[in-house]
C-alpha cells in the first residue's frame, strides 16, 4: 500500500513527509526527518526520553502515530534554543551539570519547559511530580530538580 502523506509543522517550520500507518512519530522524527535530539528509550511510554509537544501539549512521541501529526504543531528539542541562544533551562542544566550521560536530557528539558509554562513557581514536589514521566538512571534526579527550581526562580525574576 502507498505511504501516507502528512503535512505538519515542526518547530514552527511547515514540513511534509510520507510514512507507513504503523510508524510512530518518534520513528519519523529520528529517521527520515533526522531530528535525532528526541531519544528512544523504552518505546512504551514509560521513560519520557521521546517527549515532544503536540499543539503545546506534552506527549511521548513513541505513543503517537506519525500520521496523527497531520495539521498539528510539533515541538522537539531542536526548537528549544532560539537563534543559537539556549533556553534558560538548557543554560541552567549546563551550569549546574544536571545531566550525566545525557540520553534523558532532551525529554527532561521538554517536560520541564512544559511544566514551567503551566506553573512558573512550582514547589519541589510539583517539579518531581511534573517530571515523574522522565526516567534518568544517572543523576538520581537531585541536580535535575534543583536546576529546574533555579531556572524557574530566574525566569520569574526576569519576568518582573
Amino acid at each position: 500500500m502507498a505511504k501516507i502523506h502528512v503535512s505538519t509543522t515542526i518547530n514552527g517550520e511547515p514540513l511534509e513527509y510520507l510514512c507507513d500507518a504503523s510508524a510512530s512519530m518518534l520513528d519519523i522524527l529520528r529517521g527520515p526527518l533526522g531530528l535525532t535530539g528526541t531519544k528512544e528509550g523504552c518505546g512504551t511510554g514509560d521513560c519520557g526520553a521521546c517527549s515532544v509537544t503536540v499543539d503545546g501539549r506534552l506527549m511521548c512521541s513513541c505513543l503517537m502515530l506519525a500520521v496523527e501529526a497531520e495539521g498539528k504543531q510539533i515541538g522537539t528539542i531542536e526548537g528549544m534554543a532560539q537563534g543559537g541562544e539556549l533556553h534558560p533551562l538548557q543554560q541552567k542544566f549546563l551550569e549546574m551539570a544536571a545531566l550525566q550521560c545525557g540520553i534523558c536530557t532532551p525529554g527532561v528539558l521538554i517536560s520541564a519547559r512544559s511544566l514551567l509554562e503551566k506553573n512558573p513557581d512550582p514547589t519541589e514536589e510539583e517539579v518531581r511530580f511534573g517530571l515523574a514521566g522522565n526516567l534518568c538512571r544517572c543523576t538520581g534526579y537531585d541536580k535535575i530538580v534543583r536546576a529546574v527550581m533555579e531556572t524557574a526562580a530566574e525566569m520569574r525574576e526576569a519576568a518582573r
Partner: protein
Amino acid sequence: MTEIRYLAPGSLDEAVKAFAAASGAASILAGGTDLLVQMRAGVRQPGTIIDIKKIPALTAIEELGGGAFRIGAAVPGAVLAEHPTFGKAWPGVLEAINLIGSKQVQGRASPGGNLCNGSPAGDSVPAMVAAGAVVTIQGPNGGRELPVEAVPAGPGRLNLTPGEIVVSFTFPDRPKGSSDAYLRMIPRTEMDIAVVGLAVNLSMDGGVVTAARVGLGAVAPTVLLVGDAAAALVGSRLEDAALEKAADACRAACNPINDKRGTIAYRTKVAGVLLKRVAAIAAQRAGGN
C-alpha cells in the same frame, strides 16, 4: 509486518461502518497508550487502525447543567483537567483519570481507552462506576447505553458486540452536598498500577449520607459496584460502625488474585482500609458543596 491501514473518520457513522466492515481486524485508536504498546509488543496486529479523535462526539466535553456532564470517550486526561468545572463537580473521577501514567501519558490517555483496555486495575473505572456514569455505545445495529460497571466482562474482555464503539460517558445530576473521591494503593508514590483502587460517591444532607455508590477495582476479574458498602453508608453520619460495616462489605466483595503486586490477603485488607479513607475524603468534599 503486514501493511496496516489508517482511517480517521470524521463521523461516528463512518467509524462504525469501517469498524464493522473490518470484522475484527481493526483496532480503535484514541490515545494509543495501550494500543501502540501492544502493537509494538506484537500482542495486537490490527489490519486497520481507526482513529476516533476526529469525531466531535468522541472529543467533546458537554456541561449538561446541575453538575451533569457528557464527556467524549477519547478526551485525554490533560484536557479534562483543564476544564473549568468538570473537576469541581466530579473531583474523584478527575483525580482517578489523572492518576493514569505520567504527564506525557495524560496528554493522550482517555477514560474510554481505560475502560476498553479491560484491565480490572484501570484507575478511572471504579471512579466512573461510583459516579453512576452511563456509557453511550454505537454499533452497526444502532446505539445503546450501559452503566460503566456492565461494560467489563473480565480481564481484557468487554460486553460489547463486534463493531461497537464506546462514544461517551454521561455523568448524572449532582444534588447539593454531593462529591466523590478515589484512592489507589500502590507500592510507590506515582507511576504504578493499582493493587487496590476504590472510589466513593456521596450525597449528604446535614451530615447524613442520603445516597452513596462505591466502586472497587483490582480485586476481582472486573471492577465492582459494591452495593452492600453503599447501603451501609446511606442513613449514617459515617460513624465508625457504619464505616466498619461498609469496609466489611468491600472486603467481602473481593475476589482477587495473588500476584507480584499483592497477595489475596493484602488486597482484601487494603480494600477495607481504602473504603474508610476515601469515604472521609468524599464526605469532606461534599460538605464544601
